[in-house]
């Protein structure tokens, strides 16, 4: 029980720090922290699929990008109110998940990875090629941030908006992870056949996990469209999908907190190291290799292992 109290206290301290962040650091870092939060949610959404259900997707940027594009198309092309576009974007990402899941779930393991990748490439090609609608690779600027009676144009208020949204989404994800459903997903990750033998309709669980994961990725994507005030096909790119995978693995798959930390760390490192040296790609590569060698279960894995070792003593 003391462990629980401590972690609760820790969580509250972190939350207080996050809320007070704009008072402590200067403007640019608030914006960077906003980006970290958005990608933390993106990575956590993938973790539901990769870490909990054991399905490695190389097409997760699809749901992120579809939501972002929905916001941009509705706001810029159709003149829809930006706040109204938000739920529509989540719906679009979810529907895409609903449609793609049955195709992707025909396979497992590396083949699942490949199908998700193939489907994602098709969506990317549409965003890239349908110039009259999407502006192709030029992307769509002039995305307006929503206005809920108070303006989000200011860096700090937008940060708090993102913090609140990501916070609620993270709580939901954590609740799902600890619900009977989330536990069942872990069981499926460990052994599909055993779960079936126990009476679980494995496919349906994977399907729901897939769609939920798309939904949460959609939240991150819509936020990112507001954050940058534009969208481009890069949002849908395989590089974006791969980066999400790396964030999850780096932080520690199947822990939610790990992927969030992994995402924040990678966003920060890309920004920080690339300002120091143009060879930031090399530095990041070396970091990935070192993390694998010393923390094969991800950064959180180190902590878990440490705890287990102490518990064993």
């Amino acid at each position: 029980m003391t462990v629980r109290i401590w972690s609760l206290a820790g969580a509250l301290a972190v939350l207080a720090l996050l809320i007070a962040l704009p008072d402590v650091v200067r403007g640019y870092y608030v914006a960077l922290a906003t980006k970290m939060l958005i990608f933390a949610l993106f990575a956590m959404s993938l973790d539901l699929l990769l870490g909990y259900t054991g399905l490695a997707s190389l097409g997760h940027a699809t749901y992120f990008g579809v939501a972002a594009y929905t916001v941009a198309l509705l706001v810029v092309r159709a003149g829809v109110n930006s706040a109204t576009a938000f739920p529509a974007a989540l719906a679009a990402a979810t529907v895409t998940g609903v449609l793609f899941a049955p195709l992707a779930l025909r396979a497992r393991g590396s083949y699942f990875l490949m199908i998700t990748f193939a489907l994602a490439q098709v969506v990317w090609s549409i965003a890239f090629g349908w110039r009259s609608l999407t502006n192709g690779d030029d992307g769509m600027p002039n995305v307006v941030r929503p206005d809920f009676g108070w303006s989000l144009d200011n860096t700090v208020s937008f940060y708090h908006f993102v913090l609140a949204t990501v916070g609620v989404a993270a709580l939901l994800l954590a609740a799902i992870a600890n619900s009977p459903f989330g536990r069942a997903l872990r069981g499926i990750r460990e052994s599909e056949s055993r779960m079936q033998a126990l009476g679980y309709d494995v496919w349906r669980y994977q399907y729901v996990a897939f769609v939920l994961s798309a939904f949460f990725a959609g939240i991150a994507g819509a936020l990112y469209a507001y954050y940058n005030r534009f969208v481009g096909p890069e949002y849908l790119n395989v590089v974006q999908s791969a980066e999400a995978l790396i964030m999850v693995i780096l932080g520690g798959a199947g822990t939610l907190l790990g992927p969030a930390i992994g995402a924040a760390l990678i966003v920060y490192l890309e920004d920080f190291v690339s300002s120091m040296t143009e060879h930031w790609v090399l530095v990041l590569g070396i970091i990935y290799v070192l993390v694998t060698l010393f923390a094969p279960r991800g950064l959180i894995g180190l902590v878990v292992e440490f705890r287990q070792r102490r518990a064993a003593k």
Partner: protein
Amino acid sequence: MTALTVENVSKNFGGVAALKDISLDVQEGERRVLLGPNGAGKTTLFHTISGNVVPSAGRIALFGLDITRLRPDRRARLGLARTFQITNLFPRLTALDSVLLALGGASGRGMQLIRPLSSYRSLYGEAQQVLDRWGLAATARRIVRTLSYGEQRQLEIALALAGKPRLLLLDEPTAGLSPAETRRVVAMVHELPRDMTIVMIEHDMDVAFELADRIAVMHLGRLIAEGDEAAIRANKQVTEIYLGAE
């Protein structure tokens, strides 16, 4: 009542016949052991009964209900449980969590998305009871991967039993166990309620004869003999093929 009916079941894998025209009836509450050398098709037969393999021909019924084309999980919810020959557990979960999953599958509560599992107090109590009952109380908080092989085999059975199945399929529950562990498993099976139907694959003749009401012997995908201990011991073909090989 007939618990399990297997009617003229055949299975071909890419032209190789693994099961040839198998027919089998198991009565409710019966303890049936499947004997046969490696490659006889015993595990394939199990797979067709549990739904992991769809037979090429024939029909399977569970308590009078045709289940030939049902998915494994539907069969499980009809009261069928099984263990696997190669230990098939949740390596990175704790023993308690594993049993919780087994209980959840039977109850159909798995689709609860928000309410934390830890708030289902009664479920936890039940899971702990299952572990206590099968002598696994001490393993509750341990990660399955770290359990001994014997404990893992016991947990296999405990998981299958958690949902209180009406028909239990045990695939070589004592394979690879020490004599002491084997005795523990045999005791476990003895303790099961008599109305539970059990079909079991077993290599150990002593175990087989101790537990079985009736025995069926398979060879090269065919059922070659059926009967009680005496009948099997007296069967010449069985002695030649199976007992002779030992």
